[in-house]
């Protein structure tokens, strides 16, 4: 026997988290309080997401973990290893093969299917927090659907910048009721939130779980005169040529040379495997790097 419970958490904690997940699914976008546990990793590493994943995993799952779209960052690798060790689940980097995907700051480019679960790591679950620091007040605002301040903030963006400048954690309204923080994903990803998979959100430090069932209406807040746009950097991925993906700007040499590449590394690699080549790409398998 291993030294750990299956997926690390004790059964009573998992039950408590599972009950919170069910309430979250029944009340889409509403932040369900839960008693977050200490995890063997710092809060900044997504302990909320880790606890939600731990409560969801079955021994038959195949887990993918991404951090800003990449599977190979320290954070993603650590979480993947953690569950390999504590839950003995299979792991993968391929979006299409994964049954549970834990993510920090991105939604995979490849559309998810009905058999998949997307778990978000959330640093600040309360979309109204920067407008109102008091939890007692934000809770009342949600109860009364008092979301005027949020629109004021977005409108201030427009008067200052000529457009809505909020690029990440762009607030959404779920099923016409709760305004929700989608976690710091780029707003490019917002339209993907109306998907076939189950979406679960875990905030460890703030002790909140929320959820979006499949096929649920998720609308990015906007104005008639300034409709929401899922913006991204202009241009195409230098490696695979994709012009429809979210791009990261990376520095490629000591002289400050830059290029844009897909932030979703698995998606980029799949495209290159399929023969797509970007301006600075090489045929797949013939990388000098």
């Amino acid at each position, binding site marked *: 026997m291993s030294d750990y419970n299956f997926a690390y958490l004790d059964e009573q904690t998992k039950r408590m988290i599972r009950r919170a997940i069910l309430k979250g699914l029944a009340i889409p976008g509403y932040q369900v309080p839960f008693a977050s546990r200490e995890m063997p990793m710092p809060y900044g590493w997504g302990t909320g997401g880790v606890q939600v994943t731990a409560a969801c995993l079955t021994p038959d799952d195949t887990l993918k973990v991404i951090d800003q779209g990449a599977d190979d960052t320290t954070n993603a690798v650590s979480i993947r290893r953690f569950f390999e060790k504590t839950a003995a689940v299979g792991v993968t980097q391929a979006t299409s093969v994964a049954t549970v995907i834990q993510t920090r700051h991105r939604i995979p480019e490849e559309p998810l299917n009905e058999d998949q679960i997307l778990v978000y790591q959330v640093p600040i679950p309360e979309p109204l927090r920067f407008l109102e620091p008091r939890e007692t007040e934000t809770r009342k605002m949600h109860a009364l659907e008092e979301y005027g301040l949020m629109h004021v903030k977005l409108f201030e963006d427009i008067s200052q910048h000529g457009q809505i400048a909020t690029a990440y954690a762009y607030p959404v309204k779920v099923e016409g009721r709760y305004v929700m923080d989608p976690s710091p994903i780029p707003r490019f990803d917002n339209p993907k939130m109306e998907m076939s998979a*189950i979406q679960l959100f875990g905030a460890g430090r703030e002790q909140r779980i929320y959820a979006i069932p499949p096929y649920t209406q998720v609308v990015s807040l906007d104005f008639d005169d300034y409709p929401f746009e899922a913006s991204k950097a202009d241009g195409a991925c230098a490696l695979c040529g994709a012009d429809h993906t979210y791009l990261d700007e990376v520095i490629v040499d000591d002289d400050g040379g830059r290029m844009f590449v897909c932030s979703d590394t698995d998606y980029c690699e799949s495209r290159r495997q399929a023969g797509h080549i970007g301006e600075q790409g090489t045929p797949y398998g013939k990388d000098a790097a």
Partner: protein
Amino acid sequence: MELTALSGGFENTAHQSATAFRAIMNVMARPGVIETVTGAVPPKGLSTAAGSLLLTLCDPETGVHLAGELDSEPVRDWLTFHTGAPIVAAPQADFALGAWDDLLPLTQYAIGTDQYPDRSATLIVELPALTQSGVTLTGPGIRDSAQLSLPALEPFRLNAALFPLGCDFFFTAGDKIAALPRTTKPEPTPCM
């Protein structure tokens, strides 16, 4: 306490509850979908699905209300032994278990508060059978529409009208389970 109360729990709690929860979560996320949930061998009168659900979600933190014939000594003993959940009256229930008629009226259960709509009861309705026919369902979790053999229509419509407050429902029959969250809008299925 009868000796039978001591048996029929999960043999491997961590794995069986994880597998059961996946099915439970999936039906709550996708109203109208029917899944199989097993693992528990509950006393007579209680279905495998309902027993497995209770073992997966209940513990000393959750008050369980037993309605009608399911408020029996064997069920009480089994539930208490395996989950430690306190047996409570309907208004205090986190979970309420029973046949449909025995669970009524729905007005006696917690529906949450404006600030905490999650502080509401989840009802586990034991049915003789569960099929994807009958009432037409739309809402979150449903691509176009779904059908489910609900035991009634009007009480669920009234419950949905309370959103974001309201109760949530599981339906169990044998080892089958389906769910109806408060977001689902039930309508009569038009005649073909």
